[in-house]
C-alpha cells in the first residue's frame, strides 16, 4: 500500500515533468534537453526564495516563473536563430544550455544536497486506511491532477489550445490564417519551462536537490515521454503513472536493478511500437 502510494507520488512528479517536455516537443519539435536543468534550477531558486520569504507558495511560483523567463530567453535568443539548422542542432543547443545552467547551479548553491521544507500545514501526516502517510505527497498528487486538468482545458477547450493543436498539424496553414505562430511557440515553451521549474520546487520538497540530479531527472522524463508517445498528454499521464509504480516497487524489492526495470519497458515498447503509446510517427 505504502509502496503503491510512493509510486503514485513519483508518477505525479513524472507527469508534471513529462507534460512540460511533451508540450514543447508537440508544438516545436524540440526535445528540450535542458528540462532536467530547469527542474534543478527551479528547485534551487524555490529553496532560496523560501529561505528569504518563508512562503512556500511564493517559492513554487518564483521557481516556475523565473525558469519560464529563462525558457523564453532560450527560445527567443538562441533556438529561434538556428531554426534552419533543424531539430538536431536545436537539441544540441539545449544540451549545451543545460550544461551551463547545471554548472552555475553548482557554483551558486554548492555540491551538498538541499531539501526544501514544505509548510507544516501541508506536510503533516495523514491517516489513511490505518497507515500514516506524509501529507505533502498528497499535495503533490493533487497538483499533478490540477495541472493535468488545466492543460487539458487549455489545449482542448480554448481558442489558444485550438491554435496550438492546429500548429502541431500544419504550421504553414496556421500562420497563413493570421495566427502568430511565433507567439504560440514562445508561450508553449514558457509554459513547458514553467512546469519544469514548478516540478523542481515540488520535487525538491519531497526528494533532494543535488548536482547531477538534472541528468537523472532528464532521463526519467525522457523515458516517460518516449513510452507515452511524443506530444501526447494522455500517453504521458499513463506512462508516468506506470513508471512511477515500477520505480517504486523495484526500489523496494530490487534496488540494484531499479534503473534497469525502469528502462526495460521502454526498450520493449520501442521494439513493439516505436512511436510510443499514443504517439504518432514523425
Amino acid at each position, binding site marked *: 500500500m505504502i509502496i503503491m502510494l510512493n509510486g503514485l507520488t513519483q508518477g505525479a512528479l513524472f507527469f508534471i515533468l513529462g507534460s512540460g517536455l511533451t508540450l514543447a516537443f508537440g508544438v516545436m519539435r524540440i526535445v528540450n534537453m535542458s528540462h532536467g536543468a530547469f527542474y534543478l534550477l527551479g528547485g534551487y531558486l524555490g529553496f532560496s526564495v523560501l529561505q528569504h520569504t518563508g512562503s512556500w507558495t511564493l517559492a513554487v511560483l518564483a521557481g516556475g516563473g523565473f525558469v519560464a523567463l529563462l525558457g523564453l530567453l532560450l527560445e527567443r535568443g538562441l533556438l529561434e536563430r538556428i531554426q534552419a539548422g533543424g531539430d538536431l542542432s536545436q537539441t544540441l543547443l539545449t544540451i549545451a544550455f543545460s550544461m551551463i545552467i547545471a554548472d552555475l547551479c553548482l557554483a551558486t548553491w554548492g555540491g551538498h544536497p538541499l531539501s526544501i521544507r514544505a509548510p507544516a500545514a501541508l506536510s503533516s501526516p495523514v491517516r489513511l486506511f490505518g497507515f500514516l502517510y506524509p501529507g505533502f505527497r498528497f499535495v503533490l498528487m493533487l497538483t499533478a491532477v490540477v495541472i493535468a486538468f488545466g492543460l487539458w482545458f487549455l489545449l482542448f477547450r480554448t481558442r489558444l489550445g485550438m491554435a496550438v493543436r492546429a500548429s502541431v498539424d500544419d504550421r504553414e496553414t496556421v500562420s497563413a490564417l493570421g495566427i502568430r505562430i511565433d507567439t504560440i511557440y514562445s508561450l508553449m515553451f514558457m509554459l513547458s519551462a514553467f512546469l519544469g521549474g514548478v516540478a523542481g520546487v515540488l520535487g525538491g520538497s519531497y526528494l533532494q536537490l543535488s548536482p547531477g540530479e538534472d541528468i537523472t531527472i532528464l532521463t526519467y522524463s525522457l523515458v516517460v515521454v518516449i513510452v507515452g508517445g511524443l506530444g501526447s498528454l494522455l500517453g504521458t499521464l499513463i506512462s508516468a503513472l506506470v513508471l512511477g509504480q515500477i520505480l517504486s516497487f523495484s526500489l523496494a524489492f530490487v534496488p540494484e536493478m531499479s*534503473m534497469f526495470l525502469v528502462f526495460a519497458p521502454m526498450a520493449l515498447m520501442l521494439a513493439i511500437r*516505436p512511436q510510443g503509446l499514443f504517439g504518432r510517427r514523425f
Partner: protein
Amino acid sequence: MIQSTRSAWRPERAEHRFGWSLGALVFILMVTLPWYADAYTITTYTRSIYFGFLALSVALLLGQGGMISLTQTIFFGMTGYVIGLLGAERGIAFPWPELAGLLLVVVVAFLFALVLMRTYGLVFLMLSLALGQIGWSFARQNTSLLHGWAGMRGIKPPELFGLDLSVSSHFYWLSLAVFCGALWVLWRIVESRFGLVIRGIRENPRRMSALGYHVFWQRVAIFVVAALFAAVGGILAAWSSGIVTPSTLHLNRMIWVLLVVILGGARYFWGPVLGTVIAVWLDVVISQLTPRYNTVIGIIFVLVILMAPNGLLGLWDSLQARRRRNRPPGSAL
C-alpha cells in the same frame, strides 16, 4: 544525391598537394614528439589519442550516419572494466582480457543497435541517452563486481614487443601507431561501398530501402563498428590511466566528445582529430583559469552551434569558397 555527399571527402586538386604536405609535416612532428617535448606534453597528447578514438566513433555515426548516439562512452569504459575485472583482479595475461572486452562490446553494441536502429533523429538521440544512462547507473550501483563509485584500479599496460609501456614515450608511440591504423581502417570504411550506403541512409533512408538495401542491418553494422573504435580507445585509456570509474562513462564526458566532434567538423575526415587535439589543450587551459569549466565548455558549444555548425573545417571551407568567389574572373590561381 549520393554523389554530392561524397564531395566533402574529396579535397579539390589544388588543395590536395597542400593537404598532403601539411599532413606529412604533422605526422613527422607527432612521431618525433618524445624527443623534443616534455613529459607533460606527451601525456596530454596520449590523452588526445585515446579520446580521439572516442571522437572517431562519434564522428562515424554522426558525420556518416547522421545519428547522434550518446552511448559511446559506455563502450569506451566497458573494455576498461573488463580489463580491470579479468586482468588486474584475476591476473589473466595480456591479450585475453582485452579480447574479452572487445567481444563484450560487440555483443552489447549489437543488442543496443537492435533497439536503437528502429528509430531516427530525435527519438534515436533520446533512446541512446537512456541506454547510456542504464550503463552508467549500472556501473555506479553495482558494488559487488564493479565497486560502485570507486571503480577499478591498478590496471597496468602489458609488455608488448619488448617495449616497456609504462614509459610514457613508449606508450605514446604505441597509441600513435594504433591510432594511425584506426584512421586507415576508418578511411577504408568511409571510401567503401558500405560507407556510401551509410551516407545514402543518412540522406534518405526510405529511398535506400526502396533501392533494395537492408537499411536496418546496415545501420546495426555501422553502430557495432563505431562501438569498436570507442572500445579500442578504451583499452588505451585504461592502460594509460590505470583506473576506470563510472565517471569514465558519464554523460558529461559523452557531451564533451560530441562537442569535440562538432567543433572539428563531424562530416570531415580530419574533423574529429582536429577537434580532439584542440579540445584536450583547451581543457588544460580552462581548468587552470577557472573552476567553472563546464560553463565555459557549454558557452563554446553554443557558439560553435550558432556560428559554425559544420565545425572549424566547415568554417575554413566556407571561407575558402568565399575567397574564390571574390576573385575576379580570369585571374591566375
